[in-house]
Every structure is written in structure tokens, then in C-alpha cells.
């Protein structure tokens, strides 16, 4: 190469030797394989985003989803030994103090049922159950080290349609050894807990060859004596006003796995209240238990009334209890409509400039339309929080209502993409979507004594 010679260069013949030395480094034959692995991982990771599927019977549940399953990387597996040791199950629910307390207080029911299919061994490790909620802990083991990507495709209770199921599962990379996760079951109002949970799981494997779809079936025994009669109820019945918006807190029900509080919003409020930022239960020692921030966080009873779920301090047996909060995400009711011109791919109305429409696309899998929004939000209050922006119901210009069954978020808290899936229909533009959560707020202290 004669393009550029530096005066110092001639004095350093060693440098020239380096090039030859580098060229002597043999290229291992695995490098091509690694490139393909990288491509596959890239394809997966590009797709890796949190999907919220909204089945009809969960439409009234308020969901927040973050990682609820944990992947063991092969490096970690190698570190802990040839047969990787299982993590303490408590680590899977570290996001919920109440559930951690439940485990500490021996409230977990060990199960230990296993079934192996197609090289994947699934074990139901245990459950935590009471009348309001059942959490199923499971472990997947890749027995013969098959290279395949697994994705939890289906979870079903065969004989109980009156229960909602919530699960978060990321597609796992192909070199997995162990995956541990949890599945939440919520018996609907009035549904009884069965003596056995008859559950079916199906994992989709993305491999070159495998097209069979084995199912894992379990009859998981539930020891109901363990939680019978543990429920406690309190009447709060107090109304507060924050920036003129009236909120009434009704009955509180305490279960070991969660606490439920009824909340009513005055229909004459000018704003729609979305979520409390920091609503919490505080005991006489100042220990706080916040609302559940992963999984089902509440359920809507009607337009102006909902039940919010808190991490449970049941096992702390507090003497006194206060309900406190200082800010609420809310928006003028008239501002909640976002109109999307689907022909010109632009927003006709939006709450503010934080929200933009990036694109309108079509899902390659099922032809559904995808409205791709972008959210830019630097508010430090919203760290670790990506908003589920829109309600599942939307309308077109003719006034007809439709249901979206899927939404997804990807990116980071300051700048993320929110995809809203719409059915393949002949819509009359514009579509109207309704905001259900947004980083606009009202402020004011709430401080109620419950007991």
C-alpha cells in the first residue's frame, strides 16, 4: 500500500510484521455458522417486543406486562454446573413483595409434576393460590440440547372457561437450556377454584424441520384448605378530590396474593383518570405496598368504576393501614380521541407532540393492519414504564366499533414504538382510537386511614 507513508514508519519494521502475524491467524470453520446464528438472533431480537394479547374475556382487565420469564443463558448454565441448578422460585416474583412474603411464609404449594415431550421437559414446580389468584411456577429444560427457539403459544384451562390467564413469554434463543417462568390465573367474579387445575401448554418451536406441536398436560392439585377463610374485608368509603376530580374509595379485600380496592370516579369529572402513579398502602411502621405493577393491575367494573390490585401485606398483619398517593395520570375526556387518517397516514388529532404516527403497515403473518406510533417521553417519573396507549375498542368514520386484539411496545422508556393491531377491514378513514394511559397528570395528596 503506497497511499500514505509516515516518516516514522520506516523506523518500525515490527509493524509490518504485525500484519503478517494477523494474517496468520487461522479463521475457524465455525465462523460461517456463527454468522448464521447472528442473523437468526437478529431476526428474533428485532421481533422481540412485548406483546399484549387481549382475548375477549380479559378485555376488562388492566394489564401491565414486563418480563415474567427468565432465560438461562448457556454461559450461566455452564457456570452453575453441567445440570444447571434451579434458581430459587422467589426470584421469579421479585417484582411483588406480597408474593415474596407468601413464599417466606410457606404459602407455596409444591407440585413437582413433570412431563417430557419432544426433548423438552416441563415441570410444574409449585403454585401459590387463594380465592383471587393462582400463580403457577414452571420450569422448562432442553433435555437433548436441540437447537430450537421456543415460544409459549398456548395456555389453557380445559374445564374452566371462567378464569382469565395472563402470561408473558419472550421467544427464547435457540441455545437455551433452562427457562423458568410463571403463569397467572384469575378466577372471574363468582368462579370457584377447582380441586385440580387441568392445564394444557403448547410451545411453538421454530426449527427447520419440526412441525409437530406437542402439548403438555397437567392435572395440578390445589389444596384449598391452605387458603380458606383467610380473606379479610374493610370498608373505606371515603371521597377525595384531586384538582377538582372526585374519587371514591370503596371496599378493600385482603387476600394473601393481593389486595383489592374498589375505586369509583365521579361521572361529572372533566378528566378521565388513567392510573395512580404512586398509590400505596402504608402501615404504622411506614412500610409501603404499592399497586401491582406487573401482570393484571386492576379490572374495570364499569366506565367509572374499577378494582385496583395491590401487593399484599397480609402476612405482615399490620395494626394500622393508610392509603396514600400524590399524582394520577389523567387527561381531559375530550382529548382522549386520537384520529388516524389511514389513507394519508397521519394523525388528525392527538393529545400533544409526544405522540406521532410513524407508519401504517400490514402484518406479514396474518394480514392485520398495524398502526405504528412513536412516543417520546423524557419524564423521569416514567422511567421503566412504557404506556399501553389505547383501549382495545376503536371506531371508523362510519361509527362502527371494532376490537383490537393485540398491541406491542418496543424500545426504551424515553422513546418507544407502540404497535396497535387492527383487523383487515374496509375502513372509512379516519379511525378513532381512545387513549387509556398517557404521561399527563394531576397532582394532589391523598391520605386516608383505613384502620
Amino acid at each position, binding site marked *: *500500500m503506497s*497511499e*500514505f507513508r*509516515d*516518516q*516514522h*514508519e520506516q*523506523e*518500525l519494521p*515490527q*509493524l*509490518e*510484521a*504485525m*500484519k503478517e*502475524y*494477523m*494474517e496468520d*491467524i487461522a*479463521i*475457524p470453520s*465455525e*465462523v*460461517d455458522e*456463527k*454468522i*448464521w*446464528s*447472528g*442473523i437468526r*438472533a*437478529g*431476526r428474533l*431480537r*428485532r421481533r422481540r417486543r412485548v406483546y399484549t394479547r387481549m382475548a375477549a374475556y380479559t378485555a376488562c382487565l388492566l394489564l401491565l406486562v414486563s418480563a415474567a420469564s427468565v432465560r438461562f443463558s448457556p454461559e450461566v448454565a455452564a457456570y452453575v454446573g453441567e445440570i444447571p441448578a434451579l434458581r430459587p422460585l422467589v426470584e421469579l416474583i421479585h417484582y411483588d413483595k406480597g408474593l415474596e412474603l407468601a413464599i417466606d411464609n410457606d404459602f407455596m404449594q409444591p407440585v413437582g409434576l413433570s412431563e417430557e415431550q419432544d426433548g423438552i421437559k416441563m415441570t410444574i414446580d409449585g403454585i401459590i393460590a387463594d380465592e383471587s389468584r393462582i400463580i403457577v411456577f414452571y420450569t422448562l429444560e432442553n433435555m437433548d440440547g436441540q437447537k430450537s427457539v421456543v415460544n409459549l403459544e398456548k395456555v389453557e384451562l380445559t374445564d374452566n372457561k371462567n378464569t382469565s390467564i395472563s402470561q408473558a413469554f419472550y421467544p427464547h434463543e435457540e441455545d437455551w437450556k433452562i427457562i423458568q417462568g410463571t403463569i397467572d390465573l384469575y378466577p372471574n367474579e363468582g368462579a370457584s377454584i377447582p380441586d385440580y387445575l387441568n392445564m394444557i401448554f403448547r410451545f411453538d418451536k421454530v426449527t427447520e424441520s419440526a412441525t409437530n406441536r406437542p402439548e403438555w398436560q397437567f392435572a395440578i392439585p390445589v389444596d384449598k384448605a391452605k387458603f380458606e377463610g383467610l380473606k379479610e374485608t374493610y370498608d373505606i368509603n371515603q371521597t377525595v378530590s384531586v384538582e377538582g376530580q372526585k374519587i371514591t374509595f370503596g371496599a378493600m379485600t385482603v387476600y394473601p396474593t393481593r389486595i383489592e380496592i374498589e375505586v369509583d370516579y365521579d361521572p361529572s369529572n372533566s378528566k378521565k383518570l388513567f392510573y395512580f402513579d404512586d398509590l400505596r398502602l402504608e402501615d404504622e411502621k411506614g412500610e409501603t405496598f404499592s399497586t401491582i405493577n406487573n401482570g393484571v393491575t386492576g379490572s374495570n367494573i364499569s366506565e367509572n368504576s374499577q378494582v385496583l390490585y395491590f401487593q399484599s401485606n397480609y402476612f405482615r398483619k399490620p395494626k394500622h393501614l393508610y392509603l396514600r398517593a400524590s399524582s394520577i395520570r389523567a387527561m381531559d375526556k375530550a382529548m382522549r380521541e386520537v384520529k388516524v387518517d389511514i389513507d394519508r397516514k397521519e394523525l388528525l388529532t392527538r393529545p400533544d407532540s409526544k405522540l406521532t404516527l410513524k407508519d401504517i403497515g400490514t402484518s406479514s403473518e396474518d394480514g392485520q393492519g398495524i398502526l405504528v406510533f412513536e412516543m417520546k417521553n423524557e419524564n423521569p417519573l416514567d422511567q421503566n414504564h412504557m404506556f399501553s396507549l389505547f383501549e382495545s375498542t376503536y371506531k371508523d368514520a362510519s361509527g362502527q366499533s371494532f376490537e383490537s386484539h393485540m398491541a406491542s411496545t418496543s424500545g426504551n422508556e424515553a422513546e418507544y414504538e407502540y404497535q396497535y393491531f387492527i383487523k383487515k377491514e374496509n375502513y372509512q378513514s379516519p379511525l378513532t382510537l381512545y387513549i387509556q394511559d398517557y404521561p399527563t397528570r394531576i397532582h394532589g395528596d391523598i391520605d386516608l386511614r383505613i384502620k
Partner: protein
Amino acid sequence: MGNDLLVTAAKRGDDAAFYSLISQHKEKMYRIAYSYLKNETDALEAVQEVTCRAYMQIRKLKEPDYFGSWLIRILMNYCADEVKRKIRRNDGQQAAAAALEPLAASVESALLERVMLESAVEQLDANYQKVIQLKYYHDLTITEIARTLQKPEGTIKTWLHKALGGLRQRLAKEGESNE
């Protein structure tokens, strides 16, 4: 098929096109990774991870001609982070020891010379190090280095000049103290 077409196809999601782009640079990628990470396993891991990152970001690549420089930049960022991570994990000494191992069989004086040179290079400022490595270890042109590091060619020439000067001084000093 020219790189323009390959990049366009890769952006559309054509994996074969993407593979053929990466493949053009695989030897360089592996060797640069090896020179940073000093062992085969980590270097292969780097190729995989950098391929993955490039795959995810290819839509952001504006100039198809710069694919190679862009890829090497991703690689160097990855390697720099990995090296830092290794040092944090206190694996630094082990890594250095591992690096010497495969060389044990080579001629002793050549080995000593190279180890001295490498250690002198590693004492240079980060930017000087990169310029020396890219130019002399991996045979990149000034233009390619400028694109990879996203600096004007003039800056690269200045860095190179200073780096070579520094290197010469260090090697001279080492030589004296060894004699």
C-alpha cells in the same frame, strides 16, 4: 450483484443478501475481534453478536458503500465493551496469559519483539491504538479508517503520525532497559 443491491435486499429482509455482505468481511471481523479478545471462543462470539447487531440496524445504514466500515465500527465498539467487561470481572490477567499461550511455539525473539510492540501499542491513547491496529494489523486504508472512526482523513493522518512517534519512543526506551 453489487453491494448497493445487496444492501437494498438486506434492508428488505433478504437474509442471503445479508449473509453475503457479512461474509465479505468475515476474515477481517474475526481477526480484529481476535486481536482485541485474544481467544477463539470470544472472537467467534463477537462475530455472532456483531452480525446480530448489524442485522437489527441495517435499515439505519445510509451509504451502502460504507457497509464494511460501518460493520467494523460496530465490531470495535463491541470489542471495546467486552474488553472493559473482562477487566471489570478481573479476568484481565487470565486473558493476557491466554494470549501468550498459542505463541509459545513460535520463534522466541520474534515473539518477544511482537509482545513488546503489542504492549507498546496498548499503552497508546485509545484513538491512536485504533489507528495503528486498523492500519498495520488489519491493513485498512486511511480512507477506510476515517470512515470507520467517523473522523476526517486529516485527523487520522495526524493521529497516525503521533501514534507512530509515541510508539517509536516507547520501543526505544524498552530496548534500552532490556539491554
